[in-house]
C-alpha cells in the first residue's frame, strides 16, 4: 500500500488516497473510448449523423479552449468568439486571396487569433472580476464592429462576407476537428497535472496570495489567454470551411461565446473532461430539442439551463465526484 501512496504523492496534483491514484486513470480511459468511437464514427453512421458529431466536436473544442483560460484562472472571458471569428477570417482570407492549402490556413487562423489575444492581453488582464467579464464582452462586439469597419474592408470585405468553396471532403474536416479536440484535451490534461497548471489554479483561488507566493500571475495569465485563443482560432479557421461563407454578423455572434461557456459549466469548469462531457451532452440535447420543440426550442434550453444552475451548480463532474461516483482528482 505504501508504495501506492508514494506514487500518489509524487504527482503534483496530490491525488488522495491510494485507490484514487489508481482510479484517476479512469479519465484517460473514458477519453480514449470517446476518441475511438469518434474515429470509427464515419464508418458507423451516415453523413447526417456525422454532421451532428462534427458539431459536437466543434463545440467541445470551443468549450475546452475556453476552459484553458477561464477554467484555470477564473477570469471569465466573454471575448472567446472574437478569437474564433478572427481565426475564421484569417483562414478564409488565406484561402480566398492567397490560395493557401487548407491546413496552412487553419494554422494561420490559430496564430492570428493567438497574436490578437497577446495584443489584447495588455489592457485586458489588468482588469479583474466582473469588469474583466463585461469588458471582454465589449471587446467581442468591438472586434465585430472593427472587422466590418471601413478600415478593414479591403481585407475582410466587411458586410459582403467571404464565400469559400474549399475542395476537401467532409470526412477530412471531421477528422481534423477530432484531431484538434484531442490536442486541446491533451494540453489541458498535461496542464492540470503540472506545476504551471497549479499556479494557474492558484490565480483562480486567490490571485493576491499567489503573487505573494512568487507566482508571476501576469505572465501565466497571458500564456493561458494566448493558448486559449490559439485553439479557438484553429477551431474557427477549420469551421470556416464547414460554413463556406463568412460574414461578420455570424462569425462574431455572441452565442459562440455563451454556448461553450454553458457547456463547460455543465460539465465542470476547470476540469479536464468537463468541456468534453458538457459539450457532447448539451449539443446532442440541443440537437434533440430543435427537432421536437420547433418553436420553443430555445426556451426549453433556457429551462434546462436554469435548472442546472439551481440544482447542479458545480457541474456534472463535480457533482459525480461529490457523490463518490468519481474520484476527487484533477485528472478527470
Amino acid at each position, binding site marked *: 500500500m505504501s508504495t501506492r501512496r508514494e506514487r500518489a504523492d509524487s504527482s503534483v496534483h496530490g491525488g488522495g488516497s491510494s485507490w484514487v491514484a489508481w482510479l484517476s486513470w479512469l479519465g484517460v480511459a473514458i477519453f480514449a473510448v470517446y476518441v475511438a468511437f469518434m474515429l470509427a464514427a*464515419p*464508418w*458507423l*453512421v*451516415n*453523413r*447526417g*449523423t*456525422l*454532421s*451532428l458529431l462534427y*458539431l459536437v466536436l466543434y463545440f467541445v473544442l470551443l468549450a475546452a479552449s475556453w476552459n484553458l483560460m477561464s477554467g484555470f484562472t477564473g477570469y471569465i472571458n466573454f471575448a472567446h468568439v472574437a478569437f474564433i471569428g478572427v481565426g475564421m477570417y484569417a483562414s478564409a482570407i488565406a484561402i480566398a486571396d492567397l490560395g493557401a492549402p487548407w491546413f496552412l490556413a487553419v494554422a494561420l487562423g490559430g496564430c492570428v487569433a493567438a497574436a490578437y489575444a497577446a495584443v489584447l492581453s495588455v489592457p485586458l488582464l489588468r482588469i479583474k472580476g466582473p469588469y474583466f467579464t463585461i469588458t471582454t464582452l465589449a471587446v467581442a462586439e468591438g472586434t465585430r*464592429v472593427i472587422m*466590418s469597419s471601413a478600415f478593414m474592408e479591403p481585407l475582410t470585405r*466587411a*458586410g*459582403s*462576407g467571404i*464565400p469559400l*468553396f474549399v*475542395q*476537401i*471532403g*467532409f*470526412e477530412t474536416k471531421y477528422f481534423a476537428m477530432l484531431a484538434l479536440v484531442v490536442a486541446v484535451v491533451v494540453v489541458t490534461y498535461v496542464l492540470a497535472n503540472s506545476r504551471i497548471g497549479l499556479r494557474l489554479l492558484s490565480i483562480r483561488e486567490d490571485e493576491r496570495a499567489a503573487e505573494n507566493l512568487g507566482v508571476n500571475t501576469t505572465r501565466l495569465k497571458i500564456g493561458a489567454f494566448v493558448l486559449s485563443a490559439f485553439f479557438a482560432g484553429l477551431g474557427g479557421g477549420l*469551421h470556416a470551411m*464547414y*460554413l*463556406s*461563407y463568412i*460574414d*461578420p*454578423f*455570424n462569425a462574431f*455572434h455572441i*452565442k459562440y461565446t455563451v454556448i461553450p461557456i454553458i457547456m463547460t459549466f455543465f460539465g465542470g469548469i476547470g476540469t479536464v473532461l468537463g468541456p468534453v462531457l458538457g459539450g457532447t451532452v448539451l449539443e*446532442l*440535447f440541443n*440537437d*434533440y430539442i*430543435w*427537432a*421536437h420543440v*420547433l*418553436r420553443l*426550442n*430555445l426556451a426549453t434550453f433556457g429551462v434546462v439551463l436554469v435548472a442546472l444552475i439551481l440544482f447542479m451548480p458545480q457541474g456534472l463532474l463535480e457533482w459525480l465526484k461529490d457523490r463518490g461516483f468519481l474520484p476527487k482528482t484533477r485528472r478527470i
Partner: protein
Amino acid sequence: MCSRKYVPSNDTGLTRRNFIKTTGVVAIGTAIAGHIPTIFAQQKKPLRIGASISLTGKYARSGEEQHKGYMLWAKHVNELGHSYGKADLPNSGEPGLLGRPVELIVLDDRSDPTTGVRLYNELIHSRQVDLLLGPYSSAVTNAVAPIIENAQIPTPNPMASSTAIWEGRNLQWQVQVQPPGSRRLPGLTQVAMEHGDEKIAIIYEDSEFPRNAAKALRARAKEDGLQIVLDTAYPVKITDWTPIVQQVMNSGATVLAGGGYLPDAIGITRATRSLGYQPNILSLLVGVALPDYRDTLGKAALTVTGDADWTPNVNYPGAQKYVEAYRSEYGGVPEYHSAGGYGAAQILEEAVRRAGTVDDFEKIRDIMFELKTTTVFNLYEVAPLDSPDSGLQLAANRVMLQVQEADGKLENAVVYPDEAANAQWIYPFQ
C-alpha cells in the same frame, strides 16, 4: 473531390439504428408541419420534402412567413392535386404530387448558418427526404449551397436575393427564385431625374444583400446623371438611425434611398420624420412592402416608396386565390416572403410533374433549369446550366410601391412600372 463514400444509400439499416439507440438522443422525429388529409389511402408513401427555415432569431419574422408559404402549398397540393395556377400541369387530377401525399419536414435553423448546414445534412442523409426546398436568407443559403451541390438534389431557393451565391460559381442543383438584389428600387433614379432632382444619398446596412442593392443603385444613379452626395454603409444591429439621417440631411440630398431590412425601413422613416427632413423621394428596401411597416408607422409612412418582389394585388395566375387562401388559413394579408415560399415550391412542383418522377434528380434538375413559367409569386427563368452564373434568376421583376391613403386607410399602391401601376407616384414626398 468530395468523397461520397459514406453517403447513405444502403448503410441505413442496423448500424444507424444501433447508434441512435446507444446515444439515445439523436433526433429521428415525426413530421412537424405536414398536413396530410385523410383522403390518401394508407398505402401511398408520402413524398417527404425537407427545408430548414429561420423560425427563431434575427430572421424569424420573415422565415415564419416563408414557412407559411410552404405549408399552404403542401396543403393545396394534397387537397387539389395542384397548387393555385398550376392546374394545367400533368397529373394534376389526383391529390398529391404524382399521386403521393406531400409531407413537409421543416426544422428551425435559428437564423444561424452553422445550424443550417447541420440541418441540411440531417435532412439529406439522416431523414432521407425525397426533395428539398431552400432556407431563408442569403447568409444561410450561401452556407448550405455546397451541401446541396454535393448531395445533388434539385433545390429552388425562394429567399436568397444575393447574386454572389450564383455569380461565377456554376451551381448545378440550385436555382434562384427571388428577383436578384441588383434589380432593387426600380424606376427610382428615372423618376428622380424626370422631376429634376440632382442629389441622391444612398445609405445601407452593412451586410450582403443591402450592399448588393446599393451597388446596383449607385450604378443606375450615375447612369441617370444623379450626383451621389452621400454613399455610406452603416453597421448591422444599430437601434437608432437619427445620426445617419442627420448626415443625409446635411448633405443636401433631395433623394434618400437604401436601408436594409424591415427594421431599417422603420428606423429610417422614424428618424426622417423626427428630424423634419423633407426629401423629394424617400425610397427604402424591403420594409415598405410589408404590413408591419404601415402598422407600426401609421401616417408617418405616407408617400414613402419602396420595392416589392410581389404585392397582394398582382395578377399572376392563381395569385388572387392564393391571397384568399392565406387570409382564410392565417388571417391577414400575405406578404412577399410567404408568396416566395409558395412560388418556389411551385417551381419544384412543376419540374417534378413535368419529369413525371421524383427519383430521377437529373431530369428534374434539367427541367428546373430550362423552365420558363410564372408562379403566384413572379416570373421565372434562370441562367442555363452551362452558364457561369447558372441558376441565377433572370425573369423575375419588382414593382415600386408607395404608401398612399385610400378611404382613410393606408395602402400600398403600385406606382412603377407604368404597365403594372394602379396609382400615380405622388411626388414630392410629404
